[in-house]
């Protein structure tokens, strides 16, 4: 059994004062993989070796570091990690920071715009969960796929869809990434391989499994050198949905290159996960299907990134799927229409202290990866980018009338034959939107 050594991926360089994790750390094993023939032993070992380098204060062996002054030496001891053992380089740190700031600032701007009446319908914001999106998606290539839920703005942004296109889409303008036809819950991008934005929970999971199936098909049938990976993001409520289990089964059976990322923010709209689930530890459902199940602190982008590296690496090597449960929290309500009165203010306050952006900032500054000024510059840059995105969206035109009938079919003959005997799509009035339909 893998439990003899304690990988302790829950604890790491960033101090956490979490109640949830503290309770869980007393249980014997955080990471339980299935028996070795699924290749999880290597995963175990890898994680274990990572943690040896970055275990918490007071447990590590001394590392020899060249330091220039006592002050720096002291600082190093306090921060419990040496330069050579840092999880990220300066460049990576800045990329992660920028991505999380973009996600947070974008969502805040959405809320502002919604209350000003520029945005409408259903808008679900991602505040507080940025570590999961950044931690996973920043490891992907352009060809890898991301499939998400209705809470998909930040996934699209992390994957590379420009902020101005996402903002325009939310405003319902023709310059949006789906030309205003999708909306908040349906972000699609062929270029960046964002395969949606789905409104129903669990709907995206089989679609993601299918994209992973395509990767494997390309590898085995076309004999292409294809190691594209798919990430499926979904919440805790979805883990009680039938489609989730069907897909875990198929993915494990066929060893598909997919990572199932559970963003467990404890609340399915207003339903508490603990009250509605027979066994609230979602990571355990992985081994039941023959894949490793991993639990990670989703408020810490570096921990998420480490786990993500392993899981994505596993998928790329063809070793099959992984189920990763990220313990996270959303700072706002389920959607902008949700007054968020059901959650305990104490719980919200507690998680506010674990803000992933603040934690990363602390890590970067304490380890001298960048200066305060660098980070401020990034924040300023993002603010300007967003101002520009909002301006762009405001000034963009609304869709023309003719757009109503466009793109229902890839082959427009699907509209059939009109009363004059010709295909409707050949009638110029039809495409202008002025014909009687």
């Amino acid at each position, binding site marked *: 059994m893998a439990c003899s050594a304690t990988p302790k991926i829950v604890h790491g360089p960033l101090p956490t004062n979490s109640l949830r994790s503290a309770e869980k750390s007393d249980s014997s094993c955080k990471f339980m993989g299935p028996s070795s023939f699924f290749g999880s032993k290597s995963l175990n070992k890898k994680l274990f070796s990572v943690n040896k380098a970055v275990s918490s204060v007071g447990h590590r062996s001394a590392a020899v570091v060249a330091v220039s002054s006592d002050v720096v030496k002291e600082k190093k001891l306090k921060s419990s990690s040496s330069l050579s053992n840092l999880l990220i380089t300066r460049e990576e740190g800045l990329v992660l920071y920028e991505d999380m700031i973009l996600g947070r600032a974008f969502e805040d701007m959405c809320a502002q715009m919604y209350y000003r009446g520029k945005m409408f319908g259903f808008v679900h914001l991602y505040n507080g969960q940025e570590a999961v999106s950044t931690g996973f998606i920043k490891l992907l290539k352009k060809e890898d*796929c991301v*499939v998400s839920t209705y809470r998909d703005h930040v996934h699209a942004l992390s994957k590379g869809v420009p902020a101005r296109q996402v903002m325009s889409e939310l405003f319902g303008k023709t310059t949006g*990434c*789906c*030309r*205003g*036809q*999708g*909306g908040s819950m*349906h972000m*699609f*991008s*062929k270029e960046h*391989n964002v*395969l*949606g*934005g*789905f*409104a*129903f929970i669990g*709907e995206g*999971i*089989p*679609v*993601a*499994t*299918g*994209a*992973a*199936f*395509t*990767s494997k*098909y*390309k590898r085995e*049938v*076309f004999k292409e050198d294809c190691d594209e990976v798919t990430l499926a993001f979904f919440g805790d409520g979805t883990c009680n949905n*039938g*489609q989730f289990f*069907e*897909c875990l*089964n*198929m993915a494990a*059976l066929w060893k598909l290159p997919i990572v199932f990322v559970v963003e467990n923010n404890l609340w399915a709209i207003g339903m508490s996960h603990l009250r509605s689930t027979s066994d609230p530890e979602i990571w355990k459902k992985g081994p039941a299907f023959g894949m490793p199940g991993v639990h990670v602190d989703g408020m810490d982008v570096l921990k998420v990134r480490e786990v993500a590296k392993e899981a994505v690496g596993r998928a790329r090597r063809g070793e099959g799927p992984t189920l990763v449960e990220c313990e996270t929290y959303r700072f706002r309500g389920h959607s902008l229409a949700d007054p968020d009165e059901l959650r305990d203010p104490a719980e919200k306050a507690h998680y506010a202290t674990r803000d992933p952006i603040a934690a990363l900032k602390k890590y970067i500054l304490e380890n001298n990866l960048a200066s305060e000024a660098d980070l401020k510059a990034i924040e300023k840059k993002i603010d300007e980018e967003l101002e520009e995105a909002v301006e762009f969206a405001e000034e963009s035109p609304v869709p023309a009338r003719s757009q109503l009938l*466009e*793109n*229902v*079919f*890839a*082959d427009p*003959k*699907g*509209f*059939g*034959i*009109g*009363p*004059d*005997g010709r*295909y409707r799509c050949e009638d110029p009035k039809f495409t202008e939107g002025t014909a009687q339909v």
Partner: protein
Amino acid sequence: MLKNLRRAVGAIPFMRNPALASRSYSVSVKQMMVREALNSALDEEMSADPTVFLMGEEVGEYQGAYKAGFTGLGVGAAYYGLKPVIEFMTFNFAMQGVDHIINSAAKTNYMSSGNINVPIVFRGPNGPAAGVGAQHSQCYASWYGAIPGLKVVSPYSSEDARGLLKAAIRDPDPVVFLENELLYGESFPVSKQVLDSDFTIPIGKAKIEKEGNDVSIVSFSRMVGFSLKAAEILAKDGIDAEVINLRSIRPLDRSTVNASVRKTNRLVTVEEGFPQHGVGAEICASVVSDSFGYLDAPVERIAGADVPMPYAANLEIIALPQVDDIVRAAKRACYRSVPLSATR
């Protein structure tokens, strides 16, 4: 590489199936069962294009796939570049995956504004079989026919089956392909043109199976056969019926139907599904709105009985349209006096 394959397949005359070869006559017309038509179409399309693959319950060696899961999986594969053909044991089972057919497949090209199209085919038997009970006998033509973004076709003969399935697989949009279990074993003559590996039938065009002048009988799938038999019986009574095989439920070939009604002035629609909001209702509405002045009699709609399908064999027969029902409806449309319902 793909191009060469396609060329190679086109060059080889279709004589692969020994059963067919033994049936070949000296004329160029062969008999082919609908089942063979479908299989040959699938076979040729899969050989020509390696991105086409078949998935379903108990298909090939992929045991362990379950409806909602594999329907969505097929859609995801289609998003990302493959061309799946998803097979359902019957379309009743597809109800468990209908969310994916409609929300993930039909609506995606529109929601993504042309970014992501879904070249997927959902096929399987539709409608009643023989004694399979209420949960296995529903006809879904009108349900799927209502959804924008889907193309829905329902073949009758082997020629229809081959041509429409090839067209469906080559189509860049989601196509729902409604077959009929009882038709699988029926044989139809097929010309050499039909056997060509590039033979396709355009989606959205109906076929006039038999020309006539007195009454138009419009139907699809198995009911086309019944309509043709009814036309023979009506001919003996001096009524020259025109039988139209819709072939496509969505898009509906309104122009052919309307042109026919303008010629005959009477319309009878036949379907196996439930009567309310059925295919016949849509045809009737189309004709009333486009050719009202040409109608000499109210439109007669024949559909399955408005009840879940019973099991008992004699009840099942009267729950479905029979040739006799079509004959009586046509006569009513021609103002001949006939009993309103079956006397047996």
